[in-house]
């Protein structure tokens, strides 16, 4: 940086200086106000520029003189408003002449070099700041444009129309190409570029329009798009016009995905001008957003989730909701698709309103499923409160085509996931707990627990193995005694399942039932158990070895089975076991379901002994005793173990109804004694005999 010679002190009187500067500042202010729009009145601007002029003069006097500070002053000047080129020009004119006329910068030849350097630096600083401001404004405009397009899109009903909005306003050719490479639609600009009428192009393979020798390159690029290897390809291409001429163009192809994230079609942009960048931005937006609701799609959500997981606030963390609209299938089946679409839009809107106070991202994950990512803050309500507010709100009917539709959502929630998790793991966890929440219920939510999840997954894996294991004979029927507490004699035999898993521990009856119940295998497996056990029982009876009743306990699923009665009758007929030698039980919670209670009565009429399982402190448990023909009740193991006096007081009432009480899960002599004293009639459990195979059971008794 040049450093002009040191200037000797030769200051004129300060008053003259001040007056001269003030005059110069006013001139500067007047000229600027007459030239450019500045958000200031003339008095304010006089004061403002006076201060800046004083600072500039001080810089010119500074020893050593440096231009860097003047450059900074130039940048500051640019921030006064939209001064622009005209403002700089007028400033340079006023100051260039005016500074050298100030008494303090006399004689002129001493200061000329400094003033010239200063004007250059002022201009440089100003220009740099001005350029930056222009770029910033331009960027804001681009954002505004995209926002305008997006806002507009949200309000158009048809996704086609939405797309057209962008496409038709483009002077570039835009081609919608199906996955086989045939043109589905083109815009008018395409026709202009290639010389075809728009309708002539429908159905034409894109590659046929490419000049010989160039098609392979495009073909490969499109294959890469489908593989997901790249998001967008852009290549210089040659296309053949209708008149046979070859046009050199830039083709940019991208793959649009549908709401389910599956490839839907290609969009190929034929560049013809300057709007390409803009359009690409919009296409990218559309590929990351769901067209129906305007929400981010699963792909975008996953990316944002990844960022949020990484940057999660260590104190509050993030919460992920996987929401699912209850009974959406009914809406789809009951009304036309438009109603379903409107409902989705309604739910979208309500979610946006309800979560407006949170740093939240709402996405449509597909179908009737939404994802919500909340970056928690101190004031974020609890998950329960959020879910309640959502369901309370959605239960207010929304009017869609004159029909009031109320919705509810179920949710799987992952709260503060381990930051090391992959987004896909988090989403998978949320989805798993969602399935759990939805089991037979509506408007419920379930929170993800890491340990629980691992166990659920193991159980699922085992449940899936079960049909194969049954086929291979790994699952067998075992028998355990039902003992009379009064005299210790055997009053019956219960048939149970036993699964010897090779390479793993054996699984007992209760676990087997739970797994089979979860997969629906229980219906065939339960019938098989009944037939095998009835056959065994009939055999013992024929040979006079054992003639006490056989007990088979049904699950909830079996109890609600429409074919229950015919399955039981079939087993009895096939094995020849008399009906009064069979006792079946239904869990009390299953009795209100479907035909369970009716079937219970029918079984009694054909002579089968009937019992209620899981009998205890449920609100209707006692009522069933007077409403149904009950022979016995089975007290579940947890109640048996608890030796609950509140239940014990019911024993006389049960007996009064002519019903016998059997306690299940008796593990100790103590328990047996306590229940005997309380008046229980029968007992099952480890203390009284473990399940054995038929031969060992007979030997044991």
């Amino acid at each position, binding site marked *: 940086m040049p450093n002009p010679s040191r200037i000797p002190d030769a200051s004129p009187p300060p008053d003259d200086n001040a007056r001269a500067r003030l005059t110069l500042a006013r001139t500067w202010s007047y000229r600027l106000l007459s030239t450019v729009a500045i*958000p200031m*009145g003339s008095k304010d601007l006089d004061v403002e520029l006076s201060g800046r002029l004083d600072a500039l003069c001080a810089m010119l006097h500074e020893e050593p003189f440096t231009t860097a500070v003047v450059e900074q002053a130039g940048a500051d000047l640019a921030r006064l408003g939209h001064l622009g080129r*005209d403002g700089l020009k007028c400033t340079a004119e006023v100051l260039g002449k005016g500074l050298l006329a100030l008494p303090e910068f006399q004689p002129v030849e001493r200061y000329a070099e400094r003033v010239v350097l200063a004007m250059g630096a002022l201009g440089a600083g100003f220009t740099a700041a001005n350029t930056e401001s222009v770029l910033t404004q*331009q960027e*804001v*405009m681009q954002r505004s444009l995209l926002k305008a397009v997006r*806002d507009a899109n949200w309000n158009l009903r048809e996704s086609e129309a939405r797309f057209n909005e962008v496409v038709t306003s483009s002077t570039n050719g835009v081609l919608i190409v199906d996955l086989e490479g045939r043109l589905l639609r083109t815009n008018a600009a395409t026709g202009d570029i290639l010389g075809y009428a728009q309708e002539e192009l429908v159905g034409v393979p894109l590659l046929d329009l490419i000049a010989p020798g160039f098609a392979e390159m495009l073909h490969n690029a499109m294959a890469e798009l489908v593989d997901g290897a790249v998001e967008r390809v852009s290549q210089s291409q040659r296309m053949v016009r209708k008149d046979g001429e070859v046009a050199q163009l830039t083709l940019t192809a991208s793959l649009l995905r549908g709401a389910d994230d599956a490839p839907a079609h290609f969009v190929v942009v034929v560049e013809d001008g300057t709007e390409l960048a*803009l359009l690409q931005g919009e296409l990218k937006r559309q590929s990351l957003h769901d067209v129906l609701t305007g929400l981010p799609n699963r792909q975008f959500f996953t990316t944002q989730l990844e960022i949020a997981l990484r940057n999660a606030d260590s104190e509050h963390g993030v919460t992920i909701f996987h929401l699912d609209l209850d009974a959406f299938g009914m809406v789809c089946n009951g009304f036309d698709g438009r109603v379903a679409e409107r409902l989705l839009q309604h739910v979208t809107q309500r979610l946006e309103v309800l979560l407006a106070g949170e740093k939240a991202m709402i996405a449509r994950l597909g179908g009737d499923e939404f994802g919500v990512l909340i970056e928690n803050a101190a004031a974020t309500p609890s998950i329960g409160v959020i879910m309640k507010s959502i369901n309370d709100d959605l239960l207010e009917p929304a009017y869609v085509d004159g029909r009031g539709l109320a919705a509810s959502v179920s949710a799987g929630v992952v709260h503060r996931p381990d930051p090391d998790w992959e987004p896909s793991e988090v989403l998978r966890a949320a989805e798993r707990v969602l399935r759990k929440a939805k089991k037979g219920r509506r408007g419920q939510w379930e929170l993800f627990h890491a340990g629980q999840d691992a166990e659920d997954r193991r159980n699922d894996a085992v449940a899936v193995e079960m049909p194969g294991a049954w086929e291979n004979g790994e699952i067998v029927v075992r028998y355990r005694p039902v003992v009379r507490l009064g005299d210790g004699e055997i009053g019956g035999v219960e048939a149970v399942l036993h699964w010897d898993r090779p390479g793993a521990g054996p699984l007992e009856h209760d676990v087997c039932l739970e797994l089979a119940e979860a997969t629906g295998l229980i219906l065939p497996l339960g019938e098989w158990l009944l037939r095998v056990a009835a056959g065994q029982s009939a055999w013992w009876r024929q040979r006079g070895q054992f003639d006490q009743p056989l007990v088979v306990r049904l699950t909830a699923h079996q109890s609600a089975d429409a074919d229950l009665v015919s399955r039981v009758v079939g087993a009895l007929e096939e094995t020849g076991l008399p009906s009064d030698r069979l006792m079946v039980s239904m869990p009390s919670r299953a009795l209100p379901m479907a035909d369970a209670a009716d079937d219970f009565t029918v079984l009694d009429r054909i002579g089968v002994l009937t019992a209620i399982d899981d009998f205890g402190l449920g609100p209707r448990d006692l009522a069933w005793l007077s409403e149904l023909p009950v022979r016995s009740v089975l007290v579940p193991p947890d109640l048996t173990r608890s030796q609950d006096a509140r239940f014990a007081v019911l024993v006389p009432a049960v007996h009064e109804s002519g019903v016998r009480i059997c306690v299940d899960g008796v593990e100790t002599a103590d328990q047996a004694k306590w229940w005997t004293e309380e008046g229980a009639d029968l007992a099952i459990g480890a203390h009284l005999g473990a399940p054995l195979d038929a031969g060992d059971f007979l030997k044991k008794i």
Partner: protein
Amino acid sequence: MTDDRNWVPQSVDVSVPSPARLYDYMLGGAHNFAVDRQMGAKIEHLMPHARSAARINRKFLGRAVRFMVDAGVRQFLDIGSGIPTVANVHEVAQAVAPECRVVYVDRDPVAVAHSELILAGNDRAAVLQADMRDPDSILNAGEVGRLLDFDQPIGLLMLFMVHWVPTEDDPWGLMKHYREALPSGSYLAITHLANDHDNEGVRAAATRLSQVGGEQAIERGKDEIAAFFGEFELVEPGLVRYAEWRSSGPGDISDDPTVNEIAYGSVGRKP
């Protein structure tokens, strides 16, 4: 479903210049696209002082808003606000009285989107996309209901706006509709192209604009413009050349008299 965005949006077409963005260009802003700048350059060619005209109109806005704030107005409706950058209503008004509330209205979706970005975080200013020719859509809009109290005086600004309404669309009836909606003590500010000036550049530029899909600006006589104020009482100095209305300093008036005379402007008060 309640949806206050039910309007069918004007298409977002950046291949056609927009008045809002052109105006920003004339004010030296960079909130515009190439197509706007090309049109701006053409207009400057036809009308060398076009930038001065925009600047002087913006200065009028500042004076009118400050006048209204001094008169006690704390809420403003600016129809045809364009891109609210330099010295706009909320800046001017809230600088004097921070409690002032402002609703901007424009038809250009990009200007509206831009305003939304600029105004994010200012809970006393909002923007609405609407057409001035549909006053009910403006007066009944959610933003207007939220921010403006129609029991208190309102400052209605329609600068360089009414001349876009063709005579067959009855701009006087339209303005009557607006005036009737305002409570007593409200103010109305209008600037409007005059028909008694010698600036042929303005006419050439207006014709040029209408040829590229813009609308034709209609020049009107002083009496016709005065009629837009109806029963409102014009404050001093009445209906005058827009540069001369309460001008106080150098930037308010152009050195070129042909720019100062292209439009009339005034502020009226509802009795």
